């Protein structure tokens, strides 16, 4: 199954909030993918093999996978567009 990762400062609260939300939205659209919350301090361990990275921060580096704006899922603004990017990435 395609894997999407969400990272935050502890891999517990913000990232899991976004992960649960994206997972629910994907399920509703009938898209199969696993959305996982991870610790940003160990991001390099998780990013390989992931199909997309949902960032809560403004990323400075470039990553080998599509980077999606996670703030949109928290504020609700621009959420549909970001969700479309996730779906595109796990197709």
């Amino acid at each position: 199954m395609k894997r999407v990762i969400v990272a935050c400062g502890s891999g517990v609260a913000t990232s899991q909030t976004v992960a649960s939300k994206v997972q629910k939205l994907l399920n509703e659209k009938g898209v199969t993918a696993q959305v996982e919350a991870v610790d940003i301090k160990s991001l390099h361990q998780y990013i390989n093999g992931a199909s997309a990275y949902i960032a809560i921060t403004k990323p400075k580096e470039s990553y080998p996978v599509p980077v999606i704006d996670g703030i949109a899922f928290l504020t609700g603004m621009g959420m549909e567009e970001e969700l479309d990017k996730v779906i595109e990435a796990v197709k």
Partner: protein
Amino acid sequence: MGMIENLFDFILGMGAPVFVPLIMILVGLLVRMKFKEAFSAGLTLGLAFVGMNMVVGFMMNAISPAAQQFVTNTGIELTAIDGGWTPMSTLAWAWPLAFFMFPIQIAINLIMLALKQTNTLNVDLWNVWGKIFTAVLVIGVSGNVPLAFIVASLQVIIELKLADVNQRQIERLTQIPGVTTTHAMTFINVVLWPLNKLLDFIPGINDKHIDADWLKARLGVFAENHVMGFMIGILIGIFAQYGFQDILMLGVQSAAALTLFPMVAKLFMQALAPLSDAVSDYMKRRYAGREFYIGLDWPFLAGRNEIWVTTIVLVPIILGLAVILPDNKILPFAGIINLSIAVPALIVTGGNLVRMILLSIMTTPIFLYVATFFAPTITNLAEDTGALEVPAGQLMSWSSLELPAYRYLFAHATDFNMLGVIGSIIWIGLFFWYYKGMSARNRRFEAEEKEEQTA
């Protein structure tokens, strides 16, 4: 009446892993979740308690003997084991009145928005636990439940006020518009403000030649849970004068504890996510069309590498001070990456790494002493709720307990302790000073932005 009380006792007597899920299912049905979903969320919450209990037990069994050995060898009593924030959130959710804090936070926020007393909509419902934790600490000190709710409510109000006044600085730091943080760790900003003014007297302190990104790329590995856990474990083993094999074993066990804590804590969030989602959607709908800042948990600031460099530089200093400071009882462990100071320092200094590190060092004694003070309270709480088992005769606490000054002072004020009352008044005074200072900074930012536009 007697029957209702008996029923209440019976339900609480089942222990947090059973009664908190029951409350969760009830609340879920109240906000119209499907039974299947509510049950699944409730059960997840229950198993999160059980999981956390396992990891805490594992940690205590691994670390406590070494801490005891350390006492025997050196006479330095570091007997309160630092479980970090995740067991604390477990204890907070185990409080029977915990769920009342949701409507309190939401109501205060909506009223303040309606009265234009804030411009922030706090959608971070996870950190409701921070208010619950404040309330249980207050009760631990004074036993006064109504005042505990008042101190927690005041926390909700101040969180929104700080979120308002910090927003511009945060936007400058993150480049993310329209959001701010409502996390209460920023309460320590009011203490950092005067200290930061003192640092103005050090020549060259505003020199910004240090590259935090470069440092993070090299030091970042030390902030990773397993690596940090391994190193602290080894260090504790050495101080306990363990043999070589046992030192390495303690290192791996410590790495396991620090890695497992967030894995288990994630389950709490998974359980609460549907509820928090429903409520935050409701709040956003309620005020659709009005421009305001969205209040979030702190991690959207985590891209500022000054935070990570500060926490790493601080590790040996925290350990050193824990040993040196008289009457400190806390053995720093799972909470040693002190984000509760690094993130506030980032905001106060606007990202000046040298100032951040100096401010963090200056305030480390506050964190250690408050953690020491609350250790018996936290340990009792674990016992009373049955949420976590701390072995008899041992203590648990949190070395980087968030908003230490506010919690310590206001908890004492509710006990009508003179020092607590005076301290709380001073804290409020510092808050107004900070608010005024940040407002001035915001006006300066505004003037700068105007100049840039016309230039």
